[in-house]
């Protein structure tokens, strides 16, 4: 049995159509970083606890360390690199992180940004409790979360006006 037998997958990542051969055991986070060189997605714990590898798969938030790349065959993915417009205009949540000092070391930031972008896009009227619930699965060791929550509330307000 050749266990390392690779399989061809095709998917869309940040609007770009991708086809690659992958080993079945490679998780999606490693695939994004190593195969696609999209190193914005960070891998912290690799067992589903820290949240920094969060990406948006077919519109829902998932931990990319808890999915095999092979399972993303046919999916549409958004990573932190895909939040800004193609012309470089930042997503409102990215702008707000900049404004409100929503990051220090930056390790948790990609997971925070993807999580908050998805939940605020789904519900721009989200309140502080909802935001805290949404990021309860994302660990930050620097900020104490306060500036992240401030940024999220600010981004939500911007997106309500912009909608």
């Amino acid at each position, binding site marked *: 049995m050749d266990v390392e037998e690779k399989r061809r997958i095709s998917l869309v990542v940040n609007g770009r159509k991708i086809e690659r051969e992958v080993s079945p*055991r490679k998780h999606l986070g490693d695939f994004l970083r190593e195969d696609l060189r999209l190193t914005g997605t960070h891998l912290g714990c690799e067992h*589903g606890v820290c*949240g920094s590898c969060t990406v948006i798969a077919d519109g829902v938030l*998932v931990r990319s360390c808890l*999915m*095999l790349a*092979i*399972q993303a065959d046919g999916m549409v993915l958004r990573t932190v690199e895909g939040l800004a417009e193609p012309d470089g205009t930042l997503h409102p949540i990215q702008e707000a992180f900049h404004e409100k000092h929503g990051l220090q070391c930056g390790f948790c930031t990609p997971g925070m940004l993807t999580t908050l972008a998805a939940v605020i896009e789904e519900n721009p009227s989200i309140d502080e409790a909802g935001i805290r619930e949404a990021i309860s699965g994302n660990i930050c060791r620097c900020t104490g979360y306060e500036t992240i929550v401030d940024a999220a509330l600010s981004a939500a307000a911007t997106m309500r006006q912009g909608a």
Partner: protein
Amino acid sequence: MKAPPFAYHDPRSVEELTGLLGTLENVRILAGGQSLMPMLNMRYSMPDHVVDINRIADLDYVRRVEGGLRIGAMTRQRTLERDPLVAQYAPVLVEALHWVGHVQTRSRGTFGGSLCHLDPASEQPCVAALFDATLHVAGARGERDVSIHDWVLGYMTPAIEPDEALVGITLRTWDGPHGYGFEEFARRHGDYAIVAAGALVALDGAGKISRAAISIAGVDVKPIRLTEAETMLTGGPADAGAIAAAAEVARGLECMSDAQISGDYRRRLATTLTRRALDKAVKRARG
């Protein structure tokens, strides 16, 4: 951390799945992956074959059936949280799911996966026990049903053969109005519970308790129904004294003990959480 090498299979039908399970050795079934993927990444689990059931389309549903609600094994927790039938017939499941992991894990994690993984402190088997669920298991010899009360053979061990797979779960939901409550204590939100308790209460026209169910997770390898307390409550008043007396039954439970949490502490939690869950259920039953 990388998963060990394995051969990957992604069957498209239950027939194809049971065919594979009947021929392969040392197999793990990959459902939502929120427990198996960490176990693979940390190499606690070293299967030769991973059978991914995410591409089997007809395992993801919620259906009203005779005597209850049938849920496909691959129905995501996030789907159940928002399902109108679940909200109508089993709202306690929605309340329990809010304690399960986080939005990023509930979007992948499945009801069937949780019932096969069987963490002793897991909320979903606890709710299944509350509703006297029937588990539908498919194998090469056809489908068979197992009661949730016979499902847990031991620590994280379901009553399922290596060549079988859980395909659906029927919750025996209650006809008529009833109240519900689900309470839990964990060190951090999203962690497995230390202890969790769910309760269902129906009241008769005179405001007395006509039916009660109590299920507790985290005290034993399987969810425990507090049948003695249920009997005590049935036919009696729905007041604070009766609720407190029923909850006291939990203080007599044999509880697991480990390096962090003593059995004594679990008993105290079980008593307090049962009282709170019953209290909530009675308040909601009154409307």
